[in-house]
C-alpha cells in the first residue's frame, strides 16, 4: 500500500494497537499528575523536584513523552491524509501535506528531545 508509506507502523493494525497502548500510558500519567497537583495544593519546588528526580517517575514521564510522540504521529497522519488531499484541496494538496508531515515530525522530535533534556537536567 503506497498510501500508508508515511504512517507510523506501516500497517493499520500496528498503528491501531500502538495508538491504544500509548493512550493508556498518557491517560495514566494525566490522572496521576492531576491527582498529585490536586492533593498537594501548597506544592513547593523541593517537593516537585524530588518527585521528578525519582527514577520510576522519570521512566513514567519519558514513557509518556514517547507515547505523545507516536500517538501524535499516528493521529496527525490520519487527519492530514484525510483532509489535506487532492480530492478536497486540489493539485497542491500533496506538496502541502508532505510539508505539514515533515513539520509535524520535526515538532515531535523537538518535543522528545526537550522532554529528555528537562527530565535529565534536574
Amino acid at each position, binding site marked *: 500500500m503506497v498510501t500508508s508509506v508515511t504512517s507510523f507502523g506501516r500497517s493499520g493494525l500496528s498503528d491501531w494497537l500502538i495508538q491504544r497502548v500509548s493512550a493508556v500510558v498518557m491517560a495514566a500519567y494525566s490522572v496521576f499528575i492531576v491527582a498529585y497537583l490536586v492533593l498537594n495544593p501548597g506544592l513547593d519546588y523541593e517537593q516537585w523536584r524530588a518527585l521528578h528526580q525519582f527514577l520510576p517517575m522519570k521512566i513514567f514521564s519519558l514513557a509518556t513523552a514517547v507515547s505523545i510522540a507516536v500517538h501524535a504521529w499516528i*493521529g*496527525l497522519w490520519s487527519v492530514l491524509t484525510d483532509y489535506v488531499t487532492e480530492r478536497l484541496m486540489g493539485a497542491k494538496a500533496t506538496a502541502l501535506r508532505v510539508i505539514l508531515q515533515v513539520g509535524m515530525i520535526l515538532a515531535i522530535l523537538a518535543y522528545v528531545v526537550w522532554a529528555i533534556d528537562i527530565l535529565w537536567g534536574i
Partner: protein
Amino acid sequence: MTTKKRPVNLDIGTIQLPITAYASILHRISGVALFFAAGIFLWVLDGSLSSSAGFDAIKECLQSPLAKLVIWGCLSFLAYHFVAGIRHLIMDMGVGESLEGGRTGAKLVFVCSVVLILLAGVWVW
C-alpha cells in the same frame, strides 16, 4: 493522476452529521489542539523544574487570568479527548457498537466531558 478517480466511501461534505460524527470530529479537533498544548505543558514543566526561582516564576505566571484561560482550554481539550478515547477502548471490547449504542456512547461522552471541563474550571480558578 489516476488516484483522483478512486471511489469515495463516504463524502462527509454531502451528508448531514449525526451526533456520533460530532463526537468523532471533536475527538480529532481536540487531538490536534493537544499536540500544541503539549508544547505549553512542556514549557511549564521546564520552567517549574529549572530552579526555585523558575518554579516561583511559573506559579506567578499561572495566576494571570489569561494563563488560567489557556490552561483551562488545554485541560478541556484533554478532558474531551480522554473521555472520547475511553469510549474507543470500550467499543474495542465490543460494547456499544450498535447504531443505538453508538448514539448513547456519544451522548455519554458529551455529558462526562462537560462535567470534567466544569471541574477543571473550578480547579483552575
